[in-house]
């Protein structure tokens, strides 16, 4: 499903029916998407889904086979990269090794003919913004990976770009730094208010920072929605299974309701309307309680994940499901215990068998 999202004001960025073909491969297959001014949209998807291609076309580093790219109402499809006024942070470390941190941040301003005093002042402000005001005279090789990406962010923002482009900027960093920098990127983006397109394959990252997330698959946009809606109301089976965990559980659909494990559950839009299918049920929508007489399955394993635990159960009909419980609740369960697995009231997407 390709979704053009209408925004009330004129979009800051608009992709219109964008195609990018490499021979037989369709990296982008009719992408249409609007970004509202000041909005942070994340393109999320597996490798090869076309998310980076879309970002590179917006940056002018790749050329669309067909379609248009508009920024602030202006068609920039054929404008060269250096005339597009985009700030970009790359996946690979991209600081210029022969320049100091301050010179790196001021580089774009120098190209724009800003005088030295103003350049230094602006570079200082940007470094202050990313918390590196004392590192101005250092070189890239003297900084950690996280610091380098912060400087890259400061450099991209220094030119006051029309759009900020983030191409998996956190993927080269270790887990702890990723979370810190992820939150920092969001803080800075909200502070400066720059329209931002962020590309990642990490769903947690996407859900944590985005105003809206666009899930891509095989060059197409499957769904664009705020993170909570994307998670609770996936529009397609791919979105349901790619974003978060989902159990595929047998369901019977009739009269707008699905019956899953004997319980009646309301249907999400896009579900099958009649007959049998598979309901995509989130682990947290399943309840697991120790039971004897009314048991419908047995515990296979319990995985402790800090405040929560994941309990894997084999149902009597052979289905294997995963439930997410609080660790306190899960502590009473052990492998091979007889349990009762119930489905909660959250609406589910039912896909054909």
């Amino acid at each position: 499903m390709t979704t053009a999202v209408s925004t009330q004001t004129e979009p800051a960025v608009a992709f219109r029916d964008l195609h990018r073909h490499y021979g037989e491969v369709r990296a982008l297959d009719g992408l249409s998407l609007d970004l509202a001014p000041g909005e942070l949209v994340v393109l999320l998807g597996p490798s090869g889904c076309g998310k980076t291609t879309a970002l590179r076309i917006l940056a002018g580093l790749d050329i669309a086979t067909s379609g248009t790219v508009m920024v602030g109402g202006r068609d920039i499809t054929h404008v060269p990269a250096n005339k597009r006024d985009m700030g970009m942070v790359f996946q690979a470390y991209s600081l210029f090794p022969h320049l100091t941190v301050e010179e790196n941040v001021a580089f774009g301003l120098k190209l724009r003919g800003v005088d030295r005093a103003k350049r230094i002042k602006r570079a200082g402000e940007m470094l202050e913004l990313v918390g590196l005001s004392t590192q101005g005279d250092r070189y890239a090789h003297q900084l950690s990976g996280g610091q380098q990406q912060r400087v890259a962010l400061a450099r991209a923002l220094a030119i006051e770009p029309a759009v900020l482009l983030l191409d998996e900027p956190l993927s080269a960093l270790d887990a702890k730094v990723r979370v810190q920098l992820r939150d920092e990127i969001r803080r800075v983006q909200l502070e400066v208010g720059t329209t931002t397109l962020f590309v990642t394959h990490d769903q947690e990252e996407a859900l944590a920072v985005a105003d809206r997330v666009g899930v891509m698959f095989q060059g197409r946009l499957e769904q664009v929605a705020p993170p909570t809606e994307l998670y609770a109301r996936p529009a397609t089976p791919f979105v349901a299974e790619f974003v978060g965990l989902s159990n595929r559980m047998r369901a019977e659909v009739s009269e707008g309701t699905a019956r899953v494990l004997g319980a009646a559950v309301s249907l999400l839009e896009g579900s099958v309307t009649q007959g049998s299918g598979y309901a995509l049920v989130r682990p947290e929508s399943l309840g697991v309680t120790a039971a004897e007489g009314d048991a419908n399955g047995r515990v296979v394993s319990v995985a402790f994940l800090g405040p929560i635990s994941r309990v894997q159960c084999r149902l009597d009909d052979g289905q294997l499901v995963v439930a997410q419980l609080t660790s306190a609740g899960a502590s009473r369960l052990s492998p091979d215990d007889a349990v009762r697995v119930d489905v909660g009231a959250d609406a589910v997407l039912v896909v054909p068998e």
Partner: protein
Amino acid sequence: MRTSPAFRVVRVVLLLLFAVFFFGPLLAMLDFSTRGTNGSRTWAAWANLVEDPELNRAIVASLLLSLFTVVLMLLLLVPTMIWVRLRVPRATRLLEFLCLLPLTIPALVIVVGITNVYQWVTYFLGDHVLNLTFVYVVLVLPFAYRAIESALSSIDATTLAEAARSLGAGWGTVIGRIIVPNIWSGLLSAAFISVALVLGEFTIASLLNYENMQVVIALLGKSDANTSVAASLAAIAFAFVLLLLLSVVGRSRRTEGS
């Protein structure tokens, strides 16, 4: 790693053997070039290097050839290699093949092939020893290519170029202000190796009837062996100093970049 005393002795002996092998002939050359009559010592042969007009002209010609070869080689090779790496990476193998080709063709064959071309060069530019620049650029391509390629491979040129482009840099700025400063050591290597090669080149100049330093040294060898050997030793010393400089500069840049 701690080394045993026996290993250290072997190391010193090997080093001494190498020093004798390397410096022995040079000392012999120095001895021969300063040998006077009746066992006396004289620097007359060395003074000839600046006083003999023919030799002097040849030295200046060779130095100018080195300079022009380096400049033309850099102008030709650097933008081409950067462009191929950034814009047409699939042409990398072809470029490498073309650049390494002179290594596989004997100088004599190059001369036979290039003689006709040089008739045109002479027709347009006049008959001058500096015309050798063109063939020397071809001759140094394999060595210069390797040095520059190695430097380019050590940086992520594509990402740096894209970062610069997104900040507003045109292609000239990308090459001149972003890529070149980061492959400086490779360019120096290419330049120094080219200078060393041009200063030592004899075959092509001789077969094309041009008088560069090596040709004149060979001619002098028949009439004034002492001066000929002094000039040879000076050329070797000059090339040695260049390579030493290359090593020092390379090391200091590596230390800066570490």
